[in-house]
């Protein structure tokens, strides 16, 4: 078989696989414009009215707001905790460094449902001990989402720190800059792309989390993903598709932006 034929086979197979991966995306966006009152194929016409209806659904609207708030705080937590930790991992040798690295990355490794269940049990235990409410509250949710975002921030920020020569920091220090000045005036500007990518990516992984949140949402405080899943248990219509399309647009934009700062494929 000639080289050309082989190349064509690879290209064709790749196109097929890519189509399979993208099919759900395309299908749900398409369906969100269907005019059919009950979801069916083919479309009888096209309309934007499902988007209005989706926004009118309190569960989706509140879920969206909760998800955005939660994700923003998760980004803050993961940056505040993750950037200094990455600095320690990359710039210093110290006993237990490997162990600390393992700990910091472990939230990625433990299955979401298992981590969520464990956190839920710990919260209930604390509630009994301290007589405060945690499990269904925003702080509880924020702790879980900080945990989801942290390892990704550590991954992306360490990657950009590894790519930066420590000589810049050493030069600043030897010229008399203090530790903090060096960090804010030298290190931070250089690794900014990595930090921006980490922030955007952390936002996304928090926003789409389902498994950990499912244990921790309470009445009146539900994330968008949980609202979607509980809606899907009983109905499947274009309202869900409209919500999904909005989510796809937001996340797509964030990822494309994030990819401009640091190649995302490296994070996996």
């Amino acid at each position, binding site marked *: *078989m000639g080289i050309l034929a*082989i190349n064509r086979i*690879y290209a064709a197979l*790749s196109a097929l696989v*890519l189509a*399979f*991966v*993208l*099919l*759900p*995306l395309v*299908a749900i966006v398409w369906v969100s414009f269907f005019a059919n009152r009950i*979801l069916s*194929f*083919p479309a009888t016409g096209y309309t934007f009215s499902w988007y209005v209806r989706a926004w009118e659904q309190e569960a989706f609207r509140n879920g969206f707001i909760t998800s955005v708030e939660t994700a923003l705080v998760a980004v803050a*937590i993961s940056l505040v*905790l*993750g950037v*200094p*930790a990455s600095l*320690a991992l*990359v*710039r*210093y*040798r*110290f006993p237990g460094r490997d162990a600390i690295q*393992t700990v*910091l990355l*472990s939230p*990625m*490794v433990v299955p979401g*449902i*298992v981590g969520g*269940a*464990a*956190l839920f049990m*710990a919260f209930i235990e604390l509630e009994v001990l301290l007589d405060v409410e945690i499990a269904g509250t925003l702080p509880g949710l924020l702790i879980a989402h900080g*945990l989801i975002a*942290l390892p990704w921030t*550590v991954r992306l920020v*360490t*990657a950009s720190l*590894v790519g930066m020569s420590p000589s810049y920091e050493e030069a600043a220090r030897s010229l008399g800059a203090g*530790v903090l000045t060096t960090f804010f005036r030298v290190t931070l500007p250089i690794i900014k792309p990595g930090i921006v990518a980490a922030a955007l990516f952390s936002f996304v992984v928090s926003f*789409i989390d*389902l*498994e950990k949140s499912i*244990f921790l949402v309470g009445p009146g405080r539900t994330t968008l*993903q949980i609202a*979607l*899943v509980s809606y*899907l248990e009983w109905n*499947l219509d274009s309202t869900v598709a409209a919500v*999904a399309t909005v*989510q796809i647009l937001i996340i*797509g934009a964030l*990822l494309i932006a994030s*990819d401009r700062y640091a190649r995302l*494929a490296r994070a*996996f």
Partner: protein
Amino acid sequence: MSGSAMSAATTNPGGATAPPLNLPAPGARERRRLSPAFGLAAPGTLFVVLALMGPLALMFRYSLNRFVPGQMMVEALTLANYQKFFADSYYQEVLATTLWVSGLSTLLCLLAGFPVAYFLVRQASDKWKGRLLLLVILPLLMGNAVRTAAWMVILGDKGLFNAFVSTLGLSPVKLMYTPTAVVIGLVSVLLPFMIVTLQSIIEGIDANLEAAASSLGASHLTTLWRVVLPLALPGILAGTMLCFILSMNAYATPVLIGGPSFQMMAPAVYQQVAKAMNWPFGAALAFVLMAVTLVLTTTANVLVQRRYRRWSE
């Protein structure tokens, strides 16, 4: 007390999920001042210890408690929950389903992912490779809820697939709430992981080696089998592990497209902990899931590496 459990959680069931960070080797610029490093790393580390390790240890302790209906949990030190799992044929079946669904999905990901990864590295231009990789990653990060909803639209009894089938004059196929649908859904989530992992290893294989093999008369398939495959084995292993682990832990796909009678392990954990409020048994299920995954991935790792050593000799 929870030594084994903690290591199940922290040493890699995902050597694959969390590959090491590629930190600079020690020695290059040794700094011996300890305090700043500890100060920098402590808050994050402490946070994970308190919000993940601690709760996991607590959950392991709970898995040794006794469940008394109406009272929830009675303190005890018993293996009864684990015994119940291995004595109950229902849960054996749940585990068996989880295993075969994960195995099959992983295999399909490998078969479908390799050509794409190979194409991206060897044939696509740099600009297109970046774009296509992003296109592969995007659907991955749409979220399980949205992706699952999309598959429900496609696979439903009156869904897109059946609409297409009926325009061909064929009778509709029952896909929704079947294991087939779950495997389709899982493969579509896991393929991006496989493709990204494989392309990064194929990237490191010198194209000249393939050119040499084919100039010496090897067919393309022989070259793949004798040259590319052995060199790509570490990446194939990593990608396979990653897909297998992620599908062992899958929650949304089995729940929503598998339907109520299709049970896998992660949904069973949720069911026991949040719905049946049987924490000891739910906790035991969680640790069985992690232990089985860990044992299987470690065994596969050891076997493949032994094989790899023989190959590369």
